[in-house]
């Protein structure tokens, strides 16, 4: 009898639910695809952003398919849904905070005339900034969900 509980105690530390595995895969995909956006791409372009969006979709489909195929029990329950909502809350606050920061910087640039770019580059600048905000908030959402699975709710 005690063996069952010893085994359970060991399994507790290493077991991940289907949703947790899926979240770790999402985080890996986000870091692999978006990482270069922040650290490698010196010059951004519409094609690079489009390429990354396609890349994340393809990588997510591959990783999620592998996890779904390897996981027998794929049920989600009330705790999964609660954690998902908490993640979206963190993601929303991150996005809203970054938008406020972005608006503040825009106001600063327009008030003091530091933004001196041609029309074409202004568009690309905004594309990069908004895409960056979405990426950061998405990573924050996924990370918050992973943390929530390991902490008390």
């Amino acid at each position, binding site marked *: 009898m005690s063996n069952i509980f010893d085994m359970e105690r060991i399994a507790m530390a290493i077991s991940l*639910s289907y949703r947790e595995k899926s979240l770790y895969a999402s985080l890996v995909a986000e870091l692999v695809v978006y990482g270069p956006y922040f650290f490698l791409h010196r010059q951004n372009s519409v094609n690079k952003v489009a390429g990354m969006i396609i890349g994340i979709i393809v990588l997510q489909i591959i990783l999620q398919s592998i996890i779904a195929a390897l996981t027998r029990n794929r049920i989600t329950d009330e*705790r999964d849904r609660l954690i998902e909502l908490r993640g979206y809350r963190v993601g929303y606050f991150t996005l809203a905070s970054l938008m406020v920061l972005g608006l503040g910087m825009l106001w600063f640039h327009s008030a003091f005339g530091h933004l001196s770019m041609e029309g074409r580059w202004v568009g690309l600048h905004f594309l990069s900034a908004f895409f960056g905000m979405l990426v950061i908030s998405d990573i924050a959402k996924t990370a918050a969900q992973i943390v929530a699975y390991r902490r008390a*709710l």
Partner: protein
Amino acid sequence: MPSIRNQIRELRAERKMTQQELADQIGVTRQTVIAIEQDKYSPSLETAFKVARVLGVTLEECFQYEPRGRR
């Protein structure tokens, strides 16, 4: 930490029931049963009633409310 305590682990041990068996019977994942047993998650009222019914005890025998700061 949630202010709901429970005796699920002890009651389960008495019935020689595994976490997976309990999880299957109440319709949650095993990880959720683990979180409830470790007082890391307070289940919904519906799930709490299901747990008590599966273990064959009353809700009060299974779950206890302890206001924060009284432990």
